[in-house]
C-alpha cells in the first residue's frame, strides 16, 4: 500500500543523509553540487527561496565559511531546519482554563474535512473529548460528509439547517461546547479561494462570533494546505492570515509524490509553522510534523522516473 510504503520511507530516511546528498558528498565540483541541489529544491516546490539559499551557499564557500563543496548539503540541511522548526512541545495550544476551539480553513479541496476527522482522532488519542461543527453550509453534501466521519469516530457533530449561515453554526457549536462535557471544538469550514473577499470576511465573522462566547478562541486557526500546491501557497497563507491569523499549517496529501516544499516559504516569510501532516484518506493517516523527517523526504530525489 502507498501509505505503508511512505511511512517505511520516512523511517528509512530517518537519521541518514539522503541519496542525493550522499552522492554529492564525494563530489567536489561546486557547479555540479549547486546544480543538483537547485533541481532538488525547485522540483520540491521550494521556489525562490531555493535561489537565495544557493547564492548564500556560494558566497559562504568563497568566504571560507563553508570549507568545500561537499559540505554544502549539510549546510543546506541545517539552514532548512532553521527555517522550518518542529512544533514544540505540543502542536496544539490548549486553553489554560475552559474548552479549546480549533478553526480549520483552506482553499477548495485542500483536505479540510478529512483533516478535521483526523484531528478529532488525534485529540481522542490525547485523551480529549472533541466535538465537531459542520460550518460548511455551502458545498453540496459537505455536512453529510463530515457527519459520516463523526459517526465513525463516535463524536457529536453540530449542524445547522440546510440554509444556515456558517457563523450561526459556529455559534451553536460554541454553546454546545460550553454546555456539554466536550472540551475541544473542531470547526470545519467551506473551501474558499483567498482571492474571494466576501468569503474571507465570512471567516472573520465566524471568528468574531466564536469570541463572543469564548473570548480567547479560536485557540488555533489551522490552514489545510495540499502538498501539491506550488508557489501560490504563500499567497494563500498570507491572505487567509489576514482575515484570521493563522497559528499553523496542516500539510495534506504527503502520501503522493509532491514534496510540499512550499511550506518553507510560508514558514520563512510568514512565520507560520507546520503542525501536522496528512498521509492518506483514513483518519489514522496523520502525524505530528517532524522537521527532520520532512526534510529528509524533501531532499530525497524523485522516487519514480
Amino acid at each position, binding site marked *: *500500500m*502507498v501509505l505503508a510504503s511512505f511511512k517505511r520511507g520516512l523511517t528509512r530516511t530517518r537519521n541518514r543523509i539522503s541519496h542525493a546528498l550522499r552522492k554529492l558528498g564525494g563530489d567536489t565540483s561546486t557547479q555540479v553540487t549547486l546544480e543538483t541541489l537547485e*533541481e532538488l529544491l*525547485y*522540483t*520540491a*516546490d521550494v*521556489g*525562490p527561496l531555493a*535561489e537565495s539559499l544557493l547564492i548564500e551557499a556560494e558566497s559562504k564557500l568563497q568566504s571560507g565559511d563553508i570549507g568545500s563543496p561537499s559540505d554544502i548539503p549539510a549546510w543546506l540541511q541545517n539552514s532548512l531546519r532553521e527555517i522550518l522548526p518542529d512544533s514544540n512541545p505540543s502542536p496544539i495550544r490548549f486553553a489554560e482554563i475552559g474548552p479549546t476551539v480549533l478553526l480549520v480553513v483552506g*482553499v*477548495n*479541496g*485542500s*483536505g479540510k474535512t478529512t483533516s478535521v476527522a483526523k484531528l478529532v482522532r488525534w485529540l481522542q488519542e490525547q485523551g480529549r473529548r472533541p466535538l465537531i461543527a459542520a460550518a460548511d453550509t*455551502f*458545498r*453540496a*453534501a*459537505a455536512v*453529510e*460528509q463530515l457527519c*459520516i*466521519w463523526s459517526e465513525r469516530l463516535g463524536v457529536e457533530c453540530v449542524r445547522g439547517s440546510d440554509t444556515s449561515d456558517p457563523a450561526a453554526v459556529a455559534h451553536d457549536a460554541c454553546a454546545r461546547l460550553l454546555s456539554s462535557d466536550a472540551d475541544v471544538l473542531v470547526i470545519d469550514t467551506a473551501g474558499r*479561494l*483567498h*482571492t*474571494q473577499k466576501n468569503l474571507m470576511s465570512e471567516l472573520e465573522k465566524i471568528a468574531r462570533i466564536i469570541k463572543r462566547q469564548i473570548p480567547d478562541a479560536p485557540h488555533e486557526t489551522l490552514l489545510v494546505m*495540499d*502538498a*501539491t*500546491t*506550488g*508557489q*501560490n*501557497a504563500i*499567497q*494563500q497563507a498570507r491572505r487567509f492570515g489576514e482575515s484570521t491569523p493563522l497559528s499553523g499549517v496542516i500539510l495534506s*496529501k504527503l*502520501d*503522493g*509524490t*509532491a*514534496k510540499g516544499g*512550499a511550506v518553507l516559504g510560508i514558514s520563512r516569510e510568514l512565520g507560520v509553522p507546520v503542525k501536522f501532516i496528512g498521509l492518506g*484518506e483514513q483518519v489514522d493517516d496523520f502525524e505530528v510534523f517532524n522537521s527532520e523527517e520532512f526534510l529528509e523526504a524533501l531532499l530525497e530525489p*524523485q522516487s*519514480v522516473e
Partner: protein
Amino acid sequence: MLENLTQSFGRVLDRFRGPGKLSPEEIQAALRDVRRALLEADVHFKVAKEFTNRVAEKLEGEAKLGRGIQGSQQAIHTFHQELSRLMHSKEASLPANPGHPMVLLLAGLQGAGKTTTAAKLALWLRKRKNSKVLLAACDLQRPAAVDQLVTLGKQLDLPVYSETPGPGVTPEGVAQRALEQAKTQRYDAVILDSAGRLHIDDELMGEIQAVSKAASPDATYLVLDSMTGQDAVESAQRFNDTLELYGLILTKMDGDARGGAALSVREISGKPISFLGTGEKPGDLEEFDSDRLAGRILDMGDIVGLVEGAQDALQEEQETKDYSKMMEGKLTMADLLDQFRMLKKMGSMKKVLGMMPGMGKMSGLLDSMDDRQFSRIEAIVLSMTPKERLHPELLDGSRRKRIARGCGQEVSAVNQLLRSFQDMQKQMKSMGKMMKSGRSKKRLLQQFGRPGSMPNFPGAPKGR
C-alpha cells in the same frame, strides 16, 4: 486567466525594450530572469530549463550566421516565439467524432474539483450543445461523494445515475449501468465522475482503468488544480500512461495562481488545455482558447502598459481628460481598450456606465458582450502596434492581415472591429458637438440609447 503568467514575463522583457544591441551578459541576465519568472509561475524545472536553453541556442545561432544579435527587439522576438509555441494548441475541447451517447470521463487527484466540474460540464453541454446529459456518480470512495453529485443534479435539474455504495457495487459497474440507461433513454452525453486518486496508488489506478475499459470514453479529461506546483507533471504523466488522456480541465482559475503547471503538463504530455473552471457557480466553465492567449503573448510588453493605463483611467482626472478627447472625435484604439479594461476591472459594468458621462450608449453593447467577446477585441487591439492604436487610419490591407494572424482571428473580425470603431468615433464627435451646443445630457443619452445606434463588434450577438 493565465494573465498573471504573461504579465510576469512582460515585466521581465520590458527591461530589454529600447534601442541598441544587447551584450552577451545582458542576454544571460534576461535568460536568468525569464527562467525565474517561469519557475515562480510553477512551470516545471525541466520545462523552464529547456525553454531558456532553446532561446539561448536560437540567439547564438543568429549570432553565428553573422547577423549579430540585433539588440533587444530580436531577443524579445525570440522569447515571444518560444512562449507562444509553449502555449499554443489547436485541438478542439470536445472529441471530434463521438459515439452516441458521447462518453466523457473525469479523472484526477483528490480535491482537484472533479465533481463540481462534472456538473459544470453537463450544464455547459446542455446550454451550448443542446445536449441531453446524464451524470454518473462513480466516486464510491469519499464519504458523501455520491450525495454531492445527486444534490448538484437536483439543484441544476440535471439527471444523475447513482447507486448506494456498498459491497458488490463497483465504479465500473455503475459506469456500465449508467451507460445502458443513457442508451435506452436516448441521452446525447454521459459524464462519468470518478473518485480522486493518487497516481502512485496502483490499486486505484487499476480501478479507474477498469472504468475506462467498461465505458470506453470518447474523451478522458484530467482535472487539474491550477494551483498545483511541480508535481503536476509527474501525476499527469502517470494518468496519461494509464488512461490516455484527451485533454486537461484546469480548475480554480478564479484564484491568483499563475498556472505554469498546466503549461508544463501541456508541453510534456502534448495534451491540450480544454476547459477552465473559473468559479464556484455551476456556470463558471469556459472553453480554453489558446489563440487568445497566444495573441496576447505576441504583444506582452504592452500588456503591462495597458494594465497601468487602465489603472490610471480609474483616476478621476484621467477620466475627464479621456472624455474631452473622445468628444472631439479623437477616440483612439488605445482609449477604447483602456475604457473596456477599466470597465472590466470595475466589475459591474452597467452600474458603472450609468455613472459615466458619454458611456451610456455603450451599456447596451456591453450588456450583450461577455468577457470572452471582450477578450477577442482585446486580442485584436493588442496585435496592433502602439502607433496603429493611435492612428487606426494607418490600417491598410496588409496591416490588417498581420493583425489577424497575430491574434489568431479572421481578417473579417479585424475589419468589423474597425468599422464599428469608426461608427463610434463619429457618434462621439456628434455627441461632443451637441454637448457644446447646450442640449441637455438627458436627451443626448436618449439619442444614443436608441436601438440601432449600437456599433456591431465582432463576436457580439446581433439583434439585441
